[in-house]
């Protein structure tokens, strides 16, 4: 074999080895990435659970009054502490009629405050104001988001959990 063809063979061999090494490394990285990415995204891959949570008897709420109730998240982690709970504004609109509002302002999610005497929800962040029925009275937001609420077993008020969303 001539020197030239040897040199050419070495070049081909080097190109092959370099591509092989890079390809194998890339493959290894891809294989390892699969479980890592799936693990990190697992909160998104789990189906959104929704559970009815008991918040008390019908008569523990006064007609026309809006009060804060706490509901437990569908499946909180053991170390979730207080974040296992979510606050909900519950309004008894009639004898058997309840409305449940998210406490999160639809502008940027800040916690809205119910002012009973003013009959208004006030947001401390950017001045969103809502009427008792959750419609907007002023400021940047849309109407307050609601939770599903039902009366079960004749006199138990139940609120359906849902993911925290803003629109």
């Amino acid at each position, binding site marked *: 074999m001539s020197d030239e063809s040897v040199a050419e063979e070495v070049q081909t061999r080097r190109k092959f080895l370099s591509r092989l090494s890079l390809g194998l490394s890339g493959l290894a990285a891809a294989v390892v990435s699969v479980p890592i990415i799936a693990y990190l995204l697992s909160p998104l891959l789990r189906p959104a659970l929704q559970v009815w949570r008991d918040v008390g008897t019908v008569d523990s709420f006064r007609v026309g009054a809006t009060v*804060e109730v706490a509901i437990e998240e569908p499946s909180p982690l053991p*170390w979730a502490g207080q974040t296992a709970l979510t606050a909900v504004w519950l309004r008894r609109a009639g004898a058997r009629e309840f409305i449940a509002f998210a406490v999160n302002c639809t*502008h940027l999610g800040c916690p809205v405050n119910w002012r009973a005497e*003013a009959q208004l929800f006030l947001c401390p962040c950017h001045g969103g104001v809502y009427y008792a029925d959750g419609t907007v009275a002023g400021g940047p937001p849309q109407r307050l988001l609601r939770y599903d609420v039902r009366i079960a077993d004749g006199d138990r008020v139940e609120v359906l959990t*849902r993911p925290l969303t803003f629109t």
Partner: protein
Amino acid sequence: MRGVLCWLDDRLGFSTVIKPLIEHPVPDTGWDYTLGSATLIAFVVQVVTGVALAFTYVPTPDHAYESLEFITHGAVLGGVVRGIHFWGASAMVLLVAAHAAQVFLVGAFKFPREVNWLSGTLLLVFTFGMAFTGQLLRWNQDAYWAVVVGAAQAARAPLIGEWLTGILFAGQSVGGATLTRFYATHVFMIPAIIFGLLGLHLYLVVRHGVSEPPVPGVPVVKNTYRERYAELMHEEGVPFWPDAGWKDVVFALAIGTIVLLLAVVLGPPELGAKADPLVVMADPRPDWYFLWYFALLALVPPQIEDAFIILFPLLLGVLFVVLPFVAPAGERSPIRRPWAIGIVLLFGVSVATLVGAGYQATWSPDMEATSLPESATAGLSGARLQGAQLFETRGCLQCHQIAAVGGRRGPDLSKVGARLSPDQLTWRILNGGRNMPAYGTTLSPGDLSALVDYLGGLR
């Protein structure tokens, strides 16, 4: 002894590899060129104090707050360590921003240092990422609601909004998985990325050299720049260490002294109330480095808000990325680039003004105001006294000031009687207007006339 040192030097290659590196020729630069190295030192201090804090901090919602309270008040000098980390964070944000502004002003992003600028842009972004994830780890009410407010903004992104909030929360809502996610991001992921980017950034500083201080009338010309720079270094260059490096040391020490003094004298801020989704009496505010943006979101007209929340950060990013390609050559001196001075001034003044506005937050109702000052109710009786009491209880005081007490969202009503007739007052209270709720369905006729009597008498 000498033998050992020689052996070490030979094996480590200090004299042959490292010494030439730290003595590489640099232009004779001024104090403004020390901002970058000071940012680097600030980062190192954050890493060291952060590692120390991680020895005690517990990243779970049920104990994070308590462990930080222990660090601040229970551990030996824990308050100082946390204080350095807290004030050091502010220092790092200020320094990285000042460094970016300085590089922009002297046109050091131009050829051949485009990638220096791009890697610096990413470092700037990730520094803000550290600031955001860091303030959440305090796990107080501000931290809890900052996650929610952050997610509410991410939720505005078209198509992927819901997906982004899921990533931020690590679940359906803020919960047990959220804090560990921010913890891992803050202490492992972003620092690792920053270390990598710093390596690239510093390598590029050596590869392309420290940019020479700009001279008006001497533009960057791509074909000749490298040759001219090499010539300049050959003629006027000084070894980085110690001719230029001493300034870096002195400046970093000065900043470090300020941070240490603040940490010892003022200490870290108190944590305030623990994060609790059930305590809705919260008044969430981000730290100052995000307060300007929080203020901006209050001032943006609602009609363009959706677009603004997505497009504003995007636009800033795009501007940073395209800058070195739009202006890769030409004049570097700020004197010949007055628009550069204008942009930095505009940005600096805007951010400072917005931070100030954010602390005032005149757009927020005053949630704490409960009663009018005595001067506003003195000598009142009958319907007018009743009107004053209604003003306090019906939420009027949350948005309107009388005698310097109350919210500033709506107009000051200290002299409203001189401005509006009783009919106008009645109409406005019943119907509301712009940002004022209508009280037509919640005020009785008697209450309404009492309120109008009271307000009409304010002159």
